[in-house]
């Protein structure tokens, strides 16, 4: 079986947080993920062999995919909770499913069964032995935001502070393993009956990593510690990180200061001036650079809802459930990676072990590089000039499925640092693109 058969996702967080050994099994070594995936075109794995389809056939296929998406969603909706989250993660973050299926799954994001008053009461009684109305001065029964495997409510502490209360779906942490197993069963059945889903080995491997990430995400104690850490280390006065109220927090409940500001969608609706776009865009980019080079830790959940644009010209950064500590030296290789020079890229890839160690530069330049060139050019575009207008950044290039198997065979180990960087960076670029911000990019990626 070729290496297409397996890929590792961004999510092997658990493994990496402890700096454990990089996976070395045959399959894991061949692993590809996140944007690395996009670089070599795995995005279209599900469409392999479909390049020569007629227009009619393409439409038909899209319809069929949507149908499969609906079948999957219905199955997941029955399971609720984790299963749906798993489906979302597979579709949103891993970019591995055909578009129509992804759209169906995306619809489901907004349909997640909310926690009702009975659920919330149960979680509070389990965690604190008291109902929310006893714990807080006031507590809003309706959530104002969804969180991973839970939701966020507004409340007022007895001391008067207004807080955001993140509550985890009861029983979800304990059921992750089982639920992933259920999704596995459904996906296996569906993947047998259709050629539109990626190979089973890929799905299987993705699910393992999804499980690891979910297990990290439901650990609110860890998230509280991460938030505190970022808050203490943050050196940018315009970046605001919420204060955690530890006395009110537990494994399943996380209470933080309620941060002011608007999500990007609401912010864009107000049609902000170009100056404001540039200001906030620059702030986001500088923050990314600050995290990379000064803190050596990435906020690795690029969900747009995690950035709030506040009226005081600042940005509130939320949700520290998924962060990644970078290995020393890693950020310094990025400057080489964000160029268009095959030699520098070859060097960076080799240093990081992304490509086989025995791959010669000639082979890289003529065989591998042409495959990654479109995406490479795309992601390095903002760094070719001292200043870059993100309104000019085209959508991420997608089509380059030819010679896929060849490309995958050239892949060596996947550095988890790279995976997380890709994920955050890709999230940042798409955010800046939506903002149409014009920002100074010079000097933001450094080699020291």
């Amino acid at each position, binding site marked *: 079986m070729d290496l297409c058969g397996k890929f590792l996702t961004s999510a092997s967080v658990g493994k990496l947080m402890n700096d454990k050994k990089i996976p070395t099994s045959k399959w894991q070594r061949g692993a590809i993920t996140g944007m690395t995936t996009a670089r070599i075109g795995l995005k279209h794995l599900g469409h392999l062999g479909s390049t020569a389809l007629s227009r009619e056939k393409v439409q038909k296929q899209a319809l069929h995919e949507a149908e499969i998406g609906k079948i999957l969603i219905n199955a997941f909706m*029955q399971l*609720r*909770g984790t299963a749906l989250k798993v489906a979302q993660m597979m579709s949103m973050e891993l970019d591995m499913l055909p578009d129509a299926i992804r759209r169906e799954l995306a619809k489901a994001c907004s349909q997640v*069964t909310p926690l*009702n*008053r*009975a*659920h919330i*009461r*149960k979680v509070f*009684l389990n965690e604190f032995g008291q*109902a929310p*109305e006893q714990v807080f001065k006031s507590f809003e029964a309706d959530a104002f935001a969804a969180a991973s495997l839970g939701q966020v409510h507004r409340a007022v502490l007895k001391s008067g502070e207004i807080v955001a209360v993140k509550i985890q779906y*009861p*029983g*979800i*942490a*304990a*059921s992750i393993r*089982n639920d992933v197993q259920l999704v596995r069963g459904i996906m296996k059945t569906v993947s047998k009956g259709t050629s539109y889903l990626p190979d089973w080995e890929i799905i299987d491997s993705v699910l393992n990593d999804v499980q690891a990430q979910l297990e990290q995400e439901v650990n609110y104690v860890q998230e509280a510690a991460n938030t505190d850490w970022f808050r203490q280390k943050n050196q940018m006065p315009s970046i605001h990180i919420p204060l955690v109220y530890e006395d009110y927090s537990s494994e399943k409940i996380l209470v933080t200061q309620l941060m002011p500001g608007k999500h990007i969608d609401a912010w864009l609706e107000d049609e902000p001036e170009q100056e404001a776009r540039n200001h906030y865009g620059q702030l986001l980019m500088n923050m990314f650079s600050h995290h990379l080079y000064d803190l050596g830790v990435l906020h690795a959940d690029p969900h747009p809802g995690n950035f709030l644009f506040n009226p005081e010209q600042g940005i509130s950064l939320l949700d520290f459930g998924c962060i990644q500590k970078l290995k020393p030296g890693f950020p310094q290789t990025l400057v080489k990676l964000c160029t268009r020079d095959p030699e520098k890229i070859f060097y960076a890839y080799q240093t990081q072990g992304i490509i086989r160690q025995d791959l010669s530069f000639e082979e890289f330049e003529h065989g591998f590089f042409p495959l990654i060139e479109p995406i490479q050019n795309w992601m390095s575009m903002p760094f070719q000039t001292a200043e870059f207008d993100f309104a000019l950044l085209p959508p991420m290039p997608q089509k380059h499925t030819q010679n896929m198997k060849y490309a995958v065979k050239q892949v060596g180990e996947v550095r988890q640092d790279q995976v997380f960087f890709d994920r955050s960076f890709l999230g940042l670029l798409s955010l800046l693109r939506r903002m149409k911000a014009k920002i100074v990019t010079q000097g933001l990626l450094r080699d020291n």
Partner: protein
Amino acid sequence: MKISKQDKAQTRRKIVKTAVELMSEKGFNTVSMRSIARSAEIGDATIYKYFPSKEKILIAYYEICAEDTVASLATIDGFSEYELHEKLQVLLDTYLGLLLPDREFVSESFQLIFQSPMFLFGDVNPLRQQLLNTLGEFLDDAWEKEEIPEFPFQNVLPDILCEYLIGVVYFWIKDESEEFHETTQLIDLSLGLIMSLLKSGIINRTTDFFGFMLKSQMFRILNPDNGFMRQILNFSQRR
């Protein structure tokens, strides 16, 4: 000396609590009424004034749990505003929460009570009555607020829900999963299903359908030429 109602209730609870502790430790069969009385520090004969048998103590345990559940629901702020779904969920959670400290005892006694013939007869009624009343109130409220449509035979719904509740407890007893997450999932899924059944009006349509079937078949049965009745008549005449 005259004992107040409150004192009586207290003693009754004390006996049940002691019995549960003893039975959890030694098992139902090895614990005698006498040992319960001694541990509860009441007279050997006095205990019979409260409970004629050990079985009645078991039933009283569930009765007390039901009482406490209902009392606890009454303390929840804004509970009357909850939807039927939420009310049922809190009822189940509270009931299971009260059973939790005595899970071992519950697992032994539950089978004894609910799988015994006495359950089918009147003995267990007091236990069910409390829950039935509460479930009835929830449903009346939901009908009044037009949360769910009315349908024929709706008076049996509290009974069905009561059986459902007992079924959930039975599932929970057997649930070995971490934090009983399988029970949580069961409640989520089954309550979701029950609510969509009740809200969809499918019961009405099904009843209409069976009503129609019954009527149409009735004509066939009563058909004087070749109906079922005619055939029975022919058959009996032949004999």
